């Protein structure tokens, strides 16, 4: 049996006047994925999210969310989706409790216990007026509002923006629980360690184009590790040149190497050289991300 992808876009494009905000995006997010959507400001992450929710309309192409057409079936999609906007804007004149109550009413009721439970976990007092909330408190409330319906799909635009590290950890825990109950999570982020921690798949978007969409594990295999080696005496640059190794710098007895390839071959080569010390940290998604980016920019 095949299940429909939670999100699928077909040549999705959006143009604002002369600016191509999104260009020919073909993206698939499978049901049950926690999908991290990465890219710098203005890359097209928020545009994609707003197209999926029918807040804006595509110039070309189309999107399916939960197997439904994002435009024609927008209401049905929103009934089954929780959304957190990138720039949280709430009704200032309401209390936190009042806002959750309104959203509960709009979805047919019965969701408030879940909202209150989440507020307790995130230590958010729902009694004050939203106008008196700090930006972090507003972010928490918007996060609760998105998760309160227990939706099949969560679309979160930078969910941990403005949250302190302890609250971020709680948010990660909640998102893990959501994934365990079968929810698909699609979220945009700048924070690579966050994506690495939470996601099983990641998409990278740049200047409105999808640069890569892969499993996090597969991207890790493409990782670039930075090796810093100290020698007891100067070595010639030629001794450090080999396939899969890029000599970033050679300064006296110290060399910096970007390692893309097979590590044992490099270790064999180093064993022939007067190595005094070396630092070889675990590759982060950030290194890989930056490499993917620089490769794409060079094209």
């Amino acid at each position: 049996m095949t299940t429909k992808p939670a999100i699928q876009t077909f040549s999705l494009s959006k143009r604002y006047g002369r600016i191509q905000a999104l260009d020919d995006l073909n993206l698939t997010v499978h049901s049950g994925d926690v999908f991290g959507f990465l890219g710098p400001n203005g890359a097209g992450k928020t545009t994609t999210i707003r197209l999926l929710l029918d807040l804006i309309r595509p110039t070309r192409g189309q999107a399916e969310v939960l197997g439904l057409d994002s435009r024609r079936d927008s209401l049905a999609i929103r009934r089954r989706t929780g959304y957190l906007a990138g720039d949280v804007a709430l009704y200032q004149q309401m209390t936190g409790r009042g806002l959750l109550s309104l959203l509960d009413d709009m979805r047919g009721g019965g969701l408030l216990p879940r909202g209150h439970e989440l507020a307790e976990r995130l230590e958010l007092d729902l009694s004050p007026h939203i106008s008196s909330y700090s930006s972090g408190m507003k972010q928490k409330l918007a996060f609760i509002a998105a998760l309160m319906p227990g939706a099949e799909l969560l679309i979160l635009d930078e969910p941990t923006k403005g949250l302190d590290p302890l609250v971020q950890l709680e948010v990660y825990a909640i998102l893990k629980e959501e994934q365990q109950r079968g929810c698909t999570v699609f979220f945009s982020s700048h924070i690579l360690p966050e994506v690495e921690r939470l996601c099983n798949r990641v998409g990278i978007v740049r200047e409105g184009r999808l640069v890569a969409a892969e499993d996090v594990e597969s991207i890790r295999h493409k990782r670039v590790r930075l090796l810093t080696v100290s020698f007891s005496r100067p070595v010639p640059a030629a001794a450090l040149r080999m396939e899969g190794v890029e000599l970033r710098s050679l300064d006296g007895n110290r060399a910096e190497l970007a390692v893309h390839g097979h590590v044992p071959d490099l270790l064999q080569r180093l064993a022939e050289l007067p190595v005094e010390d070396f630092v070889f940290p675990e590759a982060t998604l950030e290194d890989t991300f930056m490499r993917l980016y620089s490769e794409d920019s060079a094209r």
Partner: protein
Amino acid sequence: MSVHLLRTYVTFHRFTALAWMLGLAFYAFFVAVLYRSFAEAGIEELWESYPEALRAAVGLDPEAPLAVSGRFAVESWLTTEFLAWMPVLISLYGVVYGAGAIAREAEQHTLDLVLSQPVARYRLVVSKSLVFLLSAAALVVTAGVALQAGVAAAGESVDTAHLYLALFQGVLVGLAVAGYAVAFSSAFLSVGRAAAAAGLLTVILYVLEIVSRTVDGAEWVGNATLFHFYQADHILRTGGLSWTGVGVCSAVAVGGVALAAVLFQRRDIPA
């Protein structure tokens, strides 16, 4: 319409609506209670000295006598001092409210919050518009009560049904203005631009109406304005509504809201 949204927006708007109700009630009572002083001072002579066109411009019925029992008629007094201006005031309220109805939410970025819920866009437009309808109904009631109290305090009386019919037709003008202001609000998603467009259109309509009543040969121009069908003095004295006016104003109000819903459905919501 969404009942939950309507309830929420009524709550948001309650203090503004209350301020308009109190302000209008105070003005209505003040005007009514001063009637006797001005009537006894022979104000009808002043009005009789004005050109007929000017008297018509403020809504006085050219067929009805200015003085009754030797005194300026209370209906004429209420018309010249309150009822003639009430549609203008409600129109101002309609421009301000209508222009902000959708555009203010767009500017404050709160549309995402509502439109990410399972709510059709037209429901938001209708809910916002109904808030103004409810406010306008409350204004009719409070202004009516205040006028009656003021007239009673002055030792006079007016026909209650006629009074409320006059207020009703006056408020309909404001509803029509609010209707097209909501349409501008949806079209521009900018409070400033929507208010400018709706305000300018209203001023043009009002000036055309004055021209049609004061310039010989320009009477036909009045048919193109919302204010033309409102003859407060005539309604107060006879209870005779202008059904054409009721139809035109209702159509503009409903048409404006419907247009707003269609335009809003097509718009990208700004991030």
